[in-house]
């Protein structure tokens, strides 16, 4: 098979070089070297289709946008309405509710755990009558597109392990990120952008937001072909994308042409197939030099779209701009777009912090979902919004009439999803009146991961990678697809 493919590749290249001769500047040698372009016109395309083991069954989703809210958004101030906490504001959390839940080092010294409701107004919206607080005015308008899971739970109680757990299925570093798994399992949908792209933005809520770590989009033990590629705002969106100063496109093209022929002679003498992949990689790199700036350049976006995402959408590197960029990447068939927005860690001064924080994301999130919908992309694009854990119903620090803080709470929190066969206008799971324990339909992180994979036609128990003698899964040995969340 390898030989056959190489034959096509070489044959074309040889043919091309013979006929055009050497030293054709500017001409896209790239397309000649790209087997996928060949695939369109000859037998290769047949070799790329066929009944391979993935997907395991018919998929609903083709692409993901994961809007990761880093820090742990307070479900009690955003989506999980608990009037009981307002009514009994200030009473100590009963042991019968806490049931020995461990505390972080930040509140383990507190002698009292006074519960507090939200100071924000909650109302029900849409036909689905979903509860949303006044912090999310735009999201509240689109609740009929959303599926809220109010019964998420996790084991991790600190940021680093909790985020790592969501992204890799393990609290300790070393496993591949979910985007890497997807790239590994399903491959790429396009031939000039990476299949797993990461966008970062910093929240305005917390003066000193929690850091992120590049291992969150790492490929772990999978091939580094599958690592997330960070797209940064600024002149070099992908590291080392730009030609060095003074090197023209023409010169670069010429260099790549000569590079290819010299490498080819090398391949002939060593018969090392790595060399042909190297030649292709140079062509891909060359294409990215155009495709990446193109996708980052929003000057072709009409005003009404930019207004829809809000005024920050003009400012590269903001959450709103990243939402817009995510849509543009999805339009180019990027498989997995992972956003991270930091700053959801409201241990103190929650009211003032969370209002800024929610403002960062409210409009962009709602605009993204509606924009996808109006383009028909929501049907097969899964959007996920959520953080690594929730926040406590009791106050961290001093509880006053206008101020409170909340510590980390792994035992129950809320996320929402939209698109790609997830049930719209639906809320799943319930917590008790204290908003502390789940009383109905719990969804564990591994369940969520299993459900996400399910939408891609992947049986989470069957997508494995054998490493150091063991078959690893994103969901370890756990996880259950939550069929109730699916729009069947």
């Amino acid at each position: 098979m390898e030989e056959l493919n190489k034959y096509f590749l070489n044959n074309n290249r040889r043919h091309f070089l013979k006929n055009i001769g050497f030293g054709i500047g500017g001409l896209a040698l790239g397309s000649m070297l790209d087997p996928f372009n060949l695939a369109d016109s000859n037998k290769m395309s047949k070799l790329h289709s066929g009944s391979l083991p993935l997907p395991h069954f018919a998929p609903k989703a083709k692409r993901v946008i994961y809007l990761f809210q880093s820090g742990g958004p307070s479900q009690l101030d955003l989506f999980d309405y608990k009037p009981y906490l307002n009514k009994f504001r200030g009473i100590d959390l009963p042991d019968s509710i806490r049931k020995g839940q461990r505390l972080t080092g930040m509140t383990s010294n507190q002698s009292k755990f006074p519960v507090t409701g939200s100071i924000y107004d909650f109302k029900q919206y849409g036909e689905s009558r979903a509860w949303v607080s006044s912090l999310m005015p735009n999201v509240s308008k689109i609740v009929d597109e959303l599926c809220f899971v109010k019964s998420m739970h996790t084991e991790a109680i600190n940021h680093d392990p909790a985020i790592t757990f969501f992204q890799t299925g393990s609290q300790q570093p070393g496993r591949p990120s979910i985007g890497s798994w997807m790239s590994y399992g399903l491959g790429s949908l396009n031939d000039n952008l990476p299949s797993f792209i990461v966008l970062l933005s910093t929240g305005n809520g917390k003066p000193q937001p929690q850091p992120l770590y590049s291992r969150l989009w790492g490929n772990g033990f999978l091939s580094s072909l599958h690592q997330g590629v960070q797209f940064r705002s600024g002149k070099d969106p992908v590291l080392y994308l730009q030609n060095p100063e003074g090197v023209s496109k023409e010169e670069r093209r010429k260099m790549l042409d000569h590079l290819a022929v010299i490498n080819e002679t090398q391949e002939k003498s060593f018969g090392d197939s790595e060399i042909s992949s190297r030649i292709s990689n140079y062509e891909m790199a060359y294409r990215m030099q155009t495709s990446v700036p193109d996708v980052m350049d929003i000057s072709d976006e009409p005003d009404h779209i930019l207004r829809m995402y809000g005024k920050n959408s003009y400012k590269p590197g903001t959450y709103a701009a990243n939402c817009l960029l995510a849509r543009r990447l999805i339009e180019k068939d990027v498989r997995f777009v992972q956003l991270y927005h930091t700053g959801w860690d409201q241990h103190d001064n929650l009211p003032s912090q969370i209002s800024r924080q929610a403002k960062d994301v409210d409009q962009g999130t709602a605009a993204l979902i509606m924009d996808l919908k109006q383009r028909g992309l929501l049907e097969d694009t899964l959007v996920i919004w959520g953080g690594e854990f929730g926040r406590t119903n009791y106050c961290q620090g001093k509880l006053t009439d206008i101020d409170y803080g909340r510590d980390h709470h792994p035992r129950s929190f809320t996320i929402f999803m939209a698109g790609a066969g997830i049930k719209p206008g639906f809320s799943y799971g319930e917590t008790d009146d204290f908003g502390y324990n789940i009383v109905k339909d719990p969804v564990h992180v591994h369940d969520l991961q299993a459900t996400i994979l399910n939408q891609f036609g992947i049986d989470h128990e069957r997508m494995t990678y054998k490493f150091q003698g063991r078959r690893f899964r994103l969901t370890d040995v756990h996880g259950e697809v939550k069929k109730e969340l699916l729009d069947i």
Partner: protein
Amino acid sequence: MKKTLPLLSFLACFALVFGVKTYFLLQPRSEVSVLENEFDDSFEKNISIPETVSYNFDVKPILSDKCYKCHGPDPNSVQADFRLDISEDWYRISMENDNKKIISSGDLSKSELVDRIRSTRASHQMPPPESNLVLSEREKLIIEKWITQGAKWEPHWAYISPLKIEGKIDSKWNIDKFILLELEKKGLNISNEAPKELLLRRLYFDLIGLPPTLAQINQFLQDKSESAYEKVVDKLLSSQAYGERMASIWMDIARYADTNGYQDDTERTMWPWRDWVIHAYNKNMPYDQFVTWQLAGDLLPNATKEQILATGFNRNHMITQEGGVIEEEYRVEYVADRTVTTAKTFMGLTVECARCHDHKYDEISQKDFFNLFDFFNRIDEDGRISYTDKAPKPNIKLDHNLIKEKLPFIKIPDSIIELDLMVMKEADNLRKTYLLNRGAYDSPTDIELNGSMPSVILPFDQNFEKNRLGLSKWLFDPKNPITSRVAVNRLWQQFFGIGIVSTPSDFGNQGALPTHPKLLDWLSRKYIEESWNTKKMIKRIVMSKTYKQSSKPTPFKSKIDPKNYYLSHFPRQKLTAEMIRDNFLVSSGLFVDKVGGPSVKPYQPPGLWDELTGGSTSNSLKRYKMSTNGNQYRRSLYTYWKRTAPPPGMITFDASTRDYCTVERQKTSTPLQSLVLLNDPQVQEAAEYLATSLLSKELKSHKENIIHIYRKITGRSPQKKTLNYLIDYRKEVEKIHLQKAESLDKFDIRNKVYTSLSLLIYNLDETSQKS
């Protein structure tokens, strides 16, 4: 399934070849998939069945992979109270039929196992359909042939002492004899010696991690004596750079970094330990001592400062400063990290699974894990450290006087008054070790453990101290079957890219089998007999014909052994991340050769640290400040390693993350690598520097100039064809520059053209290969 399997492997093999090698471009497009490594396995196994089936080499790998999960060493998952990993259970009477046994030696018709693997009834079939595990036809045939041939038991191959291997192998044996023995079986032979230039460059990178200079190449080419090659070997082995090269491999194993790793990722001071590693390699410290000092230096009688310093090895793991963490949870992680690292590095054993439950594939119980864990659990350390603590307890202080007198290999700058760094220190009666249920810090059972080593490998001698020193004695007990095998296998991997056992961290049931078991045993025995003399072992390897042979395969060789498992030619390998960058530096003349000292910060795209560092660290690591005074041109071994934002160029070229112990790096080829080689300012600077320094000298013909640059960068003279392409390129680029800018003077244009030419050569496949 039977019918579709060949088709599947056919397609999957295709997906493998293209998926792995060429990133999204050649990744299976859209819904085409993968499970690449699984299919690779089955493809590899799709070869003829040996005449005599070996339990260890043919049968057990199948049973382990497909059956042990439910019928293996883990008692909690054993189904039907039946284990396939122990021979006692094999000969039990069948529950279904009194006339049958599970395995009836020599009689297929009386073996229930055969009925089961051949069954098509879902409720009867083994492995059951819901396990998602399938036996291939070949695997079934092997099991059957083994039963027909008597179903004989053997202990695990890696746990039979190499000293006991039967069949006398006399002192006249050497590496080549073992290699030839296997090659001849396949009708193959060793290749001729590689061309001198290629061989020299290979040797330089392998022994010192740096390319030879032009002068060194010329000298070697001119030396026609028989000992020319050996002279270079000896020179390189005694150079300081040898220790640096060896240390750069050890840094991956030791998960060395300059920061703490979790969340806020503050700075730590461990580089003096790194300087010790370089020193230890350079003075050719015997491997047993090298390891003993690192594992238990503090426990040696009258431990010296140097011995204590060496124990820094086991403090290199990540440590958290995240506010609010539960300290014990993290402390347990650190101890587990040391346990896992020790098993992986020195015992070729993956024990992570045994932290939570008895190992499903190897005879390593959860008790074994916590017995080993106990050795590392007696350190008075903190689960969470403060933001400012650069050397969390236990630690040692080293001042200038002490360093000058006892530890002169530590390159402490005058600006640092005193060094303070983490080490291991036994604290008696600090805490007891209990088996943790599911490995969780908050679920101790009442099973107390007092330190021991897995008896399946070698029972722990009761005379050994029940501490890390005893652990080291167990490792280097002449009876220990595993330590030397794992060590020489890693050395082999350093030169040939793949170990004799291709899974260097797993010599257990799920690991790969050695391609040359007798060679591995012989080398292991030599290592022990020669008192763990590492330089001697390395010299033996590089002096072999197997090492010196050409890397050019013939079509016949490629057909018979396409993956070159049997080494009928030298395996071409990509240079490591460090070598690729160091080659820019040395070949261009930018290189600053200075051994040891604090880590340095070479060029890195701006903003990377700012993006990932949280606001709560007011530490020096918020912004990357590039080093000056030549420190930016030091060997990549010295590049500052910030774990949450590691040097991007290095990571792109498959350097390990240093988050945990790594004994084998990935080997990939991606478009991001092309971007680094084309556009990294470091490459650009090297190309410019090379062009400028060439042109500032006496001007020669273009052809001579090109040959000069080509030799500097690739270590060899260009072939005629290549040279013509390069000459052509120079002309073409000159044309572009002449058209573009009239104002540029001639010298400027020459400079630009030669910079471009050098950059092209830096990007050639030849440049980043060890051929």
